[in-house]
């Protein structure tokens, strides 16, 4: 449903003028108006005091410096993140660190964080990309290109760290990363920690710039490293034999050894502990975790278990969730003594648990029945809401099973979510809500429709959401704001695109509704939709009036999608009515504006390209005309038949006919007719198609050479006889002239026709229409 790109403008951020003297003072670096970023995702974990330094692994990482991607690939508990972090602290290269989570399966969100992280390290590189990402429906690859170009220009070494790459779990996100890796500039290095081999074209990477890997067997602790940890750091009295047993039993699994350290250091007889452990057949993780948990003081245990439901937390959040005042002290103490609590850099004092440890705590929480996780999540949701961290609030409310709160939060922050490009998340949350809640908050299904449209979801899905929205309109008329009416009506127009009269009707309703909205969020878009409907119905005068109204609205430049569409319509109307100069001006304005607002590859600007193609064809700039028309058609190409695509093909055919490419023009025309045949209401398109047909018939295949020198009467007479099988002498007999005269005429004919033989002469003459039909 490309028409939705028209209404994307309604919720875009206001344009930020990069050259303006007074920058938006409120916005701190790397934040944007709209949704606040989770700062914690961009923080490097602080280097833990208890973590063993592993120089041999640093050397491996250094060896991979020429590779585009370095993968640290091993199951949970192998110390991947800690290794990454320690290495960063010893390396001079600036690091853009992003801790990934399941939410980054949405490429928009993923690259928002990547760009933000890069912005912190290389000021100015991320910001233009962030603006672009806020344009809904924008394809991700051009945005990635922009970021990569910036990095290339930056030229200095930079490392991008993606922690927990396996959590991405989505095709589009991985695809975008693969795309970036294949085009990564020489000065940039990507390092990623992961638990599973990522679905990236690793073989291709290896062939190109190399892939460097550090896997489990390399990350496993050696006996020397175990000695460093347990004996030297923790002061546990173990012999080399004990260490050997321990390393063998755990297979060098770092998490196992750190758990063992926590456990053994409090034992009176650690050697006995090791022997018992080594002799048992129990699963290593559970055995050691069990021992550690048992040894905890009850208050500590309580703290750990309850906070385990939080993904990331600050002392304030802990206080709120646990109803305490001393979380800061508890955490500071724990952090020193327990390597499984990871502190993140920065002043906000964010912490999180090591994945395995958190998992173990959560299991224990369920068993100990200390507190209901749902209650804890609810308090967390409230705290996050108070902090303005909407996404986290929604996640926790959902985890608490508190769907009414989820609905409330979504409804309250829907505009922010859209402005920050979180359209995919919004839609996925909406879809998990029960119908009753959607009916209670009519804005949700309406915005859901908008989201689905912008994401290019199938018509069936849009129809479903539309039905819910319309039911909501009926059951809660008081909550049905004009804005929502405008959304629904514009959607209807998109669905009924091919029923001209109904489309105009719904578009008019959309305009009325949009104008009733105080913010005029959708007025430009609705007017553009109406103009579009009128254009395809053939009412060019009205279409022009409406489009002018749209572009003259004061808020128009801040409604990118609608503005471009309206400018494009003005261009198309003027082009069709032969006002070439005006058409060109409108078209160029539309295209320039689309460039600036990151819409160069989106649907609304297609019409501008087509119009420009037509206009340029009229003024003889045929090569450029064809380029523009091709671009326009490409942007309008769809798998299913649409009026817009058929129209685009017709314009392309027309331009190619003008350029004397009859074969291609005919093929475009044929494709257009094929699409038209499938449209229930093709409106004026068949007439347009006929017009193109006429053009093609009138301009037959022109010869490649310039016009020939006109043959004389005598030469023409000979030419006609050349087409027969009479010999030259016999032709002379027929025309009562000598053989010599015939030969002279023939020579002249060959010269004028540019040929070297009788057969060629005949063919050429036939093409030029110089031979009369046989009597």
């Amino acid at each position, binding site marked *: 449903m490309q028409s939705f790109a028209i209404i994307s403008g309604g919720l875009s951020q206001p344009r930020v003028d990069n050259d303006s003297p007074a920058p938006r003072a409120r916005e701190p670096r790397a934040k944007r108006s709209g949704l606040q970023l989770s700062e914690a995702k961009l923080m490097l974990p602080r280097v833990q005091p208890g973590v063993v330094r592993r120089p041999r692994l640093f050397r491996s990482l250094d060896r991979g410096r020429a590779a585009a991607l370095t993968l640290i690939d091993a199951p949970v508990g192998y110390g991947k993140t800690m290794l990454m972090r320690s290495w960063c602290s010893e390396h001079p290269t600036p690091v853009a660190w992003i801790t990934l989570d399941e939410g980054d399966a949405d490429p928009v969100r993923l690259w928002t964080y990547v760009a933000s992280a890069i912005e912190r390290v290389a000021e100015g590189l991320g910001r233009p990309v962030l603006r672009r990402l806020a344009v809904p429906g924008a394809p991700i690859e051009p945005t990635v290109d922009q970021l990569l170009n910036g990095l290339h220009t930056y030229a200095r070494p930079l490392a991008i760290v993606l922690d927990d790459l396996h959590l991405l779990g989505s095709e589009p996100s991985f695809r975008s990363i693969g795309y970036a890796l294949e085009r990564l500039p020489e000065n940039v290095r990507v390092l990623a920690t992961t638990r599973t081999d990522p679905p990236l074209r690793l073989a291709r990477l290896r062939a190109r710039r190399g892939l460097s890997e550090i896997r489990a067997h390399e990350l496993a602790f050696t006996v020397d490293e175990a000695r460093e940890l347990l004996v030297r750091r923790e002061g546990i009295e173990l012999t080399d034999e004990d260490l050997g047993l321990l390393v063998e039993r755990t297979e060098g*699994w770092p998490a196992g050894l750190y758990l063992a350290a926590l456990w053994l250091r409090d034992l009176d007889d650690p050697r006995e502990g090791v022997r018992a452990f080594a002799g048992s*057949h129990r*699963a290593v*993780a559970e055995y050691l975790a*069990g021992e550690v948990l048992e040894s905890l003081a009850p208050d500590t245990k309580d703290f750990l278990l309850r906070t385990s439901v939080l993904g990331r937390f600050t002392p304030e959040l802990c206080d709120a969730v646990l109803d305490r005042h001393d979380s800061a002290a508890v955490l500071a103490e724990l952090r020193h003594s327990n390597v499984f609590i990871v502190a993140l850099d920065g002043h906000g004092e964010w912490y999180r648990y090591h*994945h395995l440890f958190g998992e173990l705590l959560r299991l*224990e929480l369920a068993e100990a029945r200390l507190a209901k996780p749902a209650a804890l999540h609810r308090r967390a949701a409230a705290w996050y809401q108070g902090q303005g961290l909407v996404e986290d609030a929604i996640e926790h409310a959902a985890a608490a099973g508190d769907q009414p709160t989820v609905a409330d939060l979504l409804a309250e922050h829907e505009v922010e979510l859209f402005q920050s490009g979180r359209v995919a998340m919004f839609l996925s949350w909406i879809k998990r809500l029960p119908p009753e809640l959607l009916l209670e908050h009519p804005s949700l299904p309406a915005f859901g429709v908008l989201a689905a449209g912008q994401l290019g979801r199938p018509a069936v899905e849009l129809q479903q959401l539309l039905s819910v929205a319309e039911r909501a309109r009926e059951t809660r008329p008081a909550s049905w704001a004009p804005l929502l009416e405008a959304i629904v009506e514009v959607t209807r127009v998109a669905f009924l695109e091919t029923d001209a009269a109904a489309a105009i009707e719904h578009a008019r309703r959309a305009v009325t509704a949009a104008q009733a909205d105080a913010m005029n969020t959708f007025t430009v878009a609705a007017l553009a939709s109406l103009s579009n409907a009128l254009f395809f119905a053939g009412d060019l005068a009205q279409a022009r009036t409406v489009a002018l109204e749209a572009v003259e609205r004061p808020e128009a430049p801040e409604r990118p999608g609608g503005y471009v569409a309206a400018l494009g319509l003005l261009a198309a109307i003027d082009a069709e009515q032969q006002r070439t100069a005006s058409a060109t001006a409108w078209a160029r304005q539309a295209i320039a504006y689309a460039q600036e607002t990151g819409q160069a590859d989106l649907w609304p600007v297609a019409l501008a390209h087509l119009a420009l193609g037509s206009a340029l064809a009229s003024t003889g700039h045929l090569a450029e005309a064809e380029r523009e028309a091709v671009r326009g058609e490409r942007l309008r190409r769809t798998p299913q038949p649409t009026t817009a695509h058929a129209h685009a093909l017709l314009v392309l055919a027309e331009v190619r006919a003008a350029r004397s490419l009859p074969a291609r023009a005919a093929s475009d025309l044929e494709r257009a007719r094929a699409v038209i045949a499938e449209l229930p209401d093709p409106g004026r398109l068949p007439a347009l198609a006929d017009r193109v047909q006429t053009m093609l018939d009138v301009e037959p295949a022109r010869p490649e050479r310039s016009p020939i020198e006109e043959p004389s009467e005598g030469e023409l007479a000979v030419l006609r006889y050349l087409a027969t099988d009479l010999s030259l002498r016999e032709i002379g007999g027929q025309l009562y002239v000598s053989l010599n005269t015939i030969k002279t005429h023939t020579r002249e004919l060959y010269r004028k026709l540019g040929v070297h033989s009788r057969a060629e002469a005949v063919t050429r003459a036939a093409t030029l229409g110089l031979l009369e039909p046989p009597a």
Partner: protein
Amino acid sequence: MDRLYYRITVEGEIGPRYAAAFRGMEIRAAHGATEITGPVIDQSQLHGLLDRIADLGLTLRSVTPMNTDT
């Protein structure tokens, strides 16, 4: 209706704590390994189970479909 049954074997014998993570499945721990057997709705659930095993730091040994009467 056809039910899928799977037997997943992991390294090490697991105790009650970890067993709680596999509600609805039969746990049999012996000779340094554990068999986790039970019904699985579909492939998605199966992969969910395998993810759980990875999250808990267990080492996977085998995944075998079973007939219901085994």
